[in-house]
């Protein structure tokens, strides 16, 4: 449990082995009885009620909550879909069509789930971009960031296996191409691929295990998300200024300020989600996946889902298969060591006049990689992919480690409260600006 410092007050002697019931402040006798024995109510109060949160979040700080909402939507729709889906190569395609036609609101469940994957990646990409721009990955939040990278990779694996389940042409051929990447590994490659497939090609055993793993991994994601949140609640959130809160004036309680701000963000997000699901449910999909899988007919162009395209472009940027696989893996794994690659102590790009622009170029570069990943592997796209791949890595391996030696950061504000209130027109801090007391326990 993410126990805050206040949790320890009932242990009068820290060295004592004697266990105590929790000294609950809850009024309701039933809830109090529970809270004394299992202080989850106190924990929620501490971690989501009075939890001190920087007062200066912008709307980029909504995306963690949005990712959480999306995860819940994905699991809820996914569990119901799994009750109707048949993980068998002869039945899978038709069972999905049956969901679309004969299951009550099956079309809604499936379109919400399929587009939910895209929405999940949009949200997580923005969430990660936020971390990169405002330096949220830097000390003391390295582990928080690394757990986030674990979540991102788990999401990619889950999404990939989920896309295989409808057993359309892109499902089959995408699975074939991606699993074949492991064959690039020397000596053991071919054996690993056979082991992954459960045979000598992508076939029924592959579909079965992908379904099993597609069901399992989301719950692993839930577990890692929990650790991600635990780590967050130890360090506290970063903020757009990238400076730590120093006094109570710099923070506000999570509730009601950020509960209402997140609620508003969630509704706006659901509008975008609804537009996609209700009016353009197949816009982000590929028509070929409405053709049943056929191992004898290869589609003209095998393209992964849009959210894999930047990494697909890196994979294809080098003519050597092993080299491509290593680069693609490296593009993800490099994120784990990012906190130690960036040598600048300044977190927020607002105060890094050069890094800011080089990072925005990196952002565009990522977009170009996404575009080029959807193009055929021919010139000039290969050259573009190579240049962009080089910049992708150069940003992490050259710019971030060395730029801080030359760059002179802008002066950091004295405190969050000072910066916020100066921007609002200055003047002394108003009374009661620190916190609104919690009304309910």
């Amino acid at each position, binding site marked *: 449990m993410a126990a805050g410092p206040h949790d320890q007050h009932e242990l009068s002697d820290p060295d004592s082995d004697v266990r105590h019931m929790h000294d609950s402040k809850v009024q309701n006798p039933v809830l109090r009885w529970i809270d004394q024995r299992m202080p989850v109510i106190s924990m929620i109060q501490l971690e989501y009620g009075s939890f001190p949160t920087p007062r200066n979040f912008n709307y980029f700080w909504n995306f963690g909550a949005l990712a959480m909402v999306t995860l819940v939507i994905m699991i809820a729709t996914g569990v119901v879909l799994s009750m109707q889906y048949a993980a068998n190569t002869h039945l899978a395609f038709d069972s999905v069509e049956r969901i679309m*036609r004969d299951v009550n609101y099956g079309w809604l469940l499936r379109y919400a789930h399929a587009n939910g994957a895209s929405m999940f990646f949009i949200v997580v990409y923005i969430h990660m971009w936020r971390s990169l721009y405002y330096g949220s990955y830097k000390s003391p939040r390295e582990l928080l960031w690394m757990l986030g990278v674990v979540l991102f990779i788990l999401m990619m694996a889950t999404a990939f296996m989920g896309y295989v389940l409808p057993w359309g042409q892109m499902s089959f051929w995408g699975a074939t191409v991606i699993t074949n990447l492991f064959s690039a590994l020397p000596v053991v490659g071919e054996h690993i691929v056979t082991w992954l497939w459960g045979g000598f090609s992508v076939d029924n055993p592959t579909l079965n295990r992908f379904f099993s793993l597609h069901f399992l991994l989301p719950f692993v994601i839930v577990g890692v998300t929990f650790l991600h949140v635990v780590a967050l609640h130890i360090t506290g959130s970063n903020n757009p200024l990238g400076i730590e809160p120093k006094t109570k004036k710099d923070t506000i309680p999570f509730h009601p300020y950020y509960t209402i701000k997140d609620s508003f963000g969630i509704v706006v997000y659901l509008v975008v989600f609804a537009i996609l699901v209700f009016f353009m449910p197949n816009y982000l999909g*590929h*028509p070929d996946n409405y053709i049943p899988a056929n191992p004898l007919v290869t589609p003209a162009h095998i393209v992964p889902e849009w959210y894999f395209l930047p990494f697909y472009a890196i994979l294809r940027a080098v003519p050597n298969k092993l080299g491509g696989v290593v680069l693609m893996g490296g593009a993800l794994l490099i994120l784990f060591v990012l906190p130690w690659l960036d040598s600048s102590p300044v977190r927020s790009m607002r105060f890094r006049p050069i890094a800011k*622009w080089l990072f925005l170029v990196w952002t565009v570069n990522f977009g*170009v990689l996404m575009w080029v990943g959807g193009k055929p592997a021919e010139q000039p796209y290969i050259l573009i992919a190579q240049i962009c791949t080089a910049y992708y890595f150069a940003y992490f391996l050259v710019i971030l480690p060395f730029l801080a030696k030359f760059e002179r950061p802008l002066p950091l504000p004295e405190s969050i409260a000072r910066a916020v209130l100066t921007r609002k027109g200055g003047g002394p801090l108003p009374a009661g600006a620190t916190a609104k007391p919690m009304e309910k326990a």
Partner: protein
Amino acid sequence: MRRPLLMLVPTLKAAALAAVLAPVLALAPAALGSGARAAEGHDVIHIPDTRFSFDGIFGTFDRASAQRGFQVYKEVCSACHSMRQLSYRHLTGIGLNPAQIAALASQFQVQDGPNDNGEMFERPARPSDHFRRPFANDAAARAANNGALPPDLSVMVKAREGGADYLHALLVGYEEPPPGITVMEGMHYNKYFPGHQIAMAPPLNTEGQVTYADGTKATVDQMATDVATFLAWAAEPELEQRRAMGVRMIIFLTILGGLAYAVKRKVWADLH
């Protein structure tokens, strides 16, 4: 060292702005839309836009057109193309009533069984039966079609780039091959088919090929529009319900969002 690098800032700013604006605006939609859309190959075929009743956000299926389209499917396409995802009962979606559907289904003989003697037998179809397939299996379909497999049409509109527009274009796109192009034996020239050589002979070739009960003149273009409408319905029978629900969802969420924003402003008022 610091000064020269700082002098780079305006240049970097300009470069980054240009870099942001140009490729992102021009290319991101293509990348997002779907990678393959851009990966069509060098021979870019322009599919003409047909005006359909179900176009746009508020479009609905023209029931009369969809019913005529079903007639075209039944009398022409179904000789070779299956629609395995559909049952006769689904046809309530294009406005047929249960009695009409029962009468329609009973025209078809389907195999059932085994009976108590362990034998398969033929019986008239019921509304709950799937559309009868023209061939027993894919091999039989190929054998009867010069080696080519007529694809199932259940989700054809969703399985082709361009959807109903493409199907309509394909059906009216047969013509004599341009000079210099030799069409392989058993193939036909179609200006909208990728590669232009299609195994399917022109299915809709003469005006009046189908006699419409409602008196609509059965031109090739009309028949193509009708059957494309029917196939669009078959691929997305939920479309009307989906859009209607979507409109209600967006209205609801917009009001909820407005309220949430008002509450947010009020809660935050004492901080500003």
